[in-house]
């Protein structure tokens, strides 16, 4: 089954997730010796999302992109602010539908390539209403299944 785009979700911007939190939340007793060394927290949004207003989340379904590191059910972070370049993995609109593929520019031809030898590359017909919807910046793959 080819890789499909199943779900689209916007990223929620501006809400940070605190992963590490040192602090003097000690009502009594000795202050922490680490207090002077606190440098804030790591914000995963900051790490993964560079253009919040242009970033959307997309759920991939299907197996045609496994060699590119995209598995069935993965969450893709799509950055529409990035301009697509040869070799990028993109969300594309082709014949009115969304699909996830690697984009290749070959002379005057545009190819959409699944990263799986079992599926053929698609040549975009010049008359097709083709459009790159966004560039896939990251894939988030869940390791634990519980």
């Amino acid at each position: 089954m080819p890789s499909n785009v199943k779900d689209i979700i916007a990223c929620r911007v501006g809400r940070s997730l605190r992963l590490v939190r040192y602090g003097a939340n000690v009502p009594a007793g000795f202050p922490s010796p680490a207090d002077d060394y606190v440098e804030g927290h790591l914000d995963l949004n900051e790490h993964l999302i560079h253009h919040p207003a242009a970033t959307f989340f997309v759920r991939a379904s299907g197996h045609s992109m496994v060699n590119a590191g995209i598995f069935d059910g993965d969450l893709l972070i799509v950055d529409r602010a990035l301009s697509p370049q040869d070799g990028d993995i993109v969300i594309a609109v082709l014949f009115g539908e969304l699909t996830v593929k690697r984009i290749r520019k070959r002379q005057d031809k545009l190819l959409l390539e699944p990263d799986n030898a079992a599926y053929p590359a698609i040549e975009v017909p010049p008359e097709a209403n083709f459009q790159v919807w966004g560039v896939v910046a990251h894939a988030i793959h869940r390791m634990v299944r519980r």
Partner: protein
Amino acid sequence: MIALVDCNNFYCSCERVFQPELAGRPLVVLSNNDGCIVARSNEVKAMGIAMGSPLFKVRDLVRRHQIVVRSSNYSLYGDMSQRVMRTLEPLSPIVEAYSIDEAFVYLDGLKVDIMEHARLLRRTVLQHTGIPVSVGIGPTKTLAKAASKLAKSDPRHEGIFSVADPAARDVALERLAVKDVWGVGPRYARMLAREGIVTARALRDADLAWVRQKMTIGGMRTVLELRGQRCFHAEMEPPPSQQIVRSRSFGRAVESLEDLEQAVAMHASRAAEKLRGQHLAAGLASVFIATNRFKSDSPQYGNSITVKPAIPTDATNTLIACTLRGLRRIYRPGYAYKKAGVMLMDLTSATDAPQSLFAELQSPQSSSLDPTLDAVNRRFGPNTLRYAAVGFEHPWAMRRQFCSPRYTTCWNELPAVKVRV
């Protein structure tokens, strides 16, 4: 110069970003309760279907032309609107969000070619958000608005029109009907027409003292703005909320107190949620109910009452209790109610809110309950976790028969996009 950036058929465009199969197909978006058409794609405009048409009056056209119909999906439109505004911000020193789908973008002091910059604004918003926009450019807000009307009037303009050049301005304002000038309502337009003023240019050249006498100071400012003098300035800071209102029309008439109680409890919960989102507490809560005033043949009744909680509060349970107490006082049986709502007033910062020495302290249980409630509902969608008073079966709920999923704000309303390659 000021650019008015105006999203084209905004609600329709939002739907199309996530449903690319709708591109090029006629599409309308309906008002709350699926009553009237509030947004039309260009294909529908070309069919001559008017803005505001009740759906039932155009049923035949909808069927014949296979017009795609959507209920309004404000969760989606609100989120996309914020994205458009945020995309404009790095491209201008001042961006004033004027409405859900329009922003005044100030170009003063930018050392750029204005037309080139307008193309950049347009290209960037389209790429980053998928929303097509038109850009009108002029030295004042009113002229920028006028230019944006003209930008849309002819596809040859490619969505950009400028009246920056005074020589071009005369011709442009001659083409613009006076009723389409920002700030001239239909009533003034009729009055002006009687006086022989039918174009924006004629209004601009009208006698200022006469305009002031006929159209007050607001009308005079409009004329000055048309002459290129700035009277309306950027309004950056939205005034802090003075009140939070939450109300809905019912999908069908409601008569029983039980149904009204559920509706009011729901409005109170959502208003309280909004209150907490802004870190405010309410000193007063009012509740209102009304019958359908357009049904003049059925008995009419409407009333409201304001209830004061013991101390300013942001707690859902307290606000539900207050508003239900109020509702029971104003409820009269035997009427077909069309609308109910809740308004929270006397808002203060939640941390500054005075604490009463004698009032019961809020129980720790409820103070940790509400943040949990908010977190769950943020994650799984509004009303996922609710007070029992809100109830579950809402046969009176607003009609939203053709609503698309909340693609961008709700994890459990994820769209399934089928792709065959």
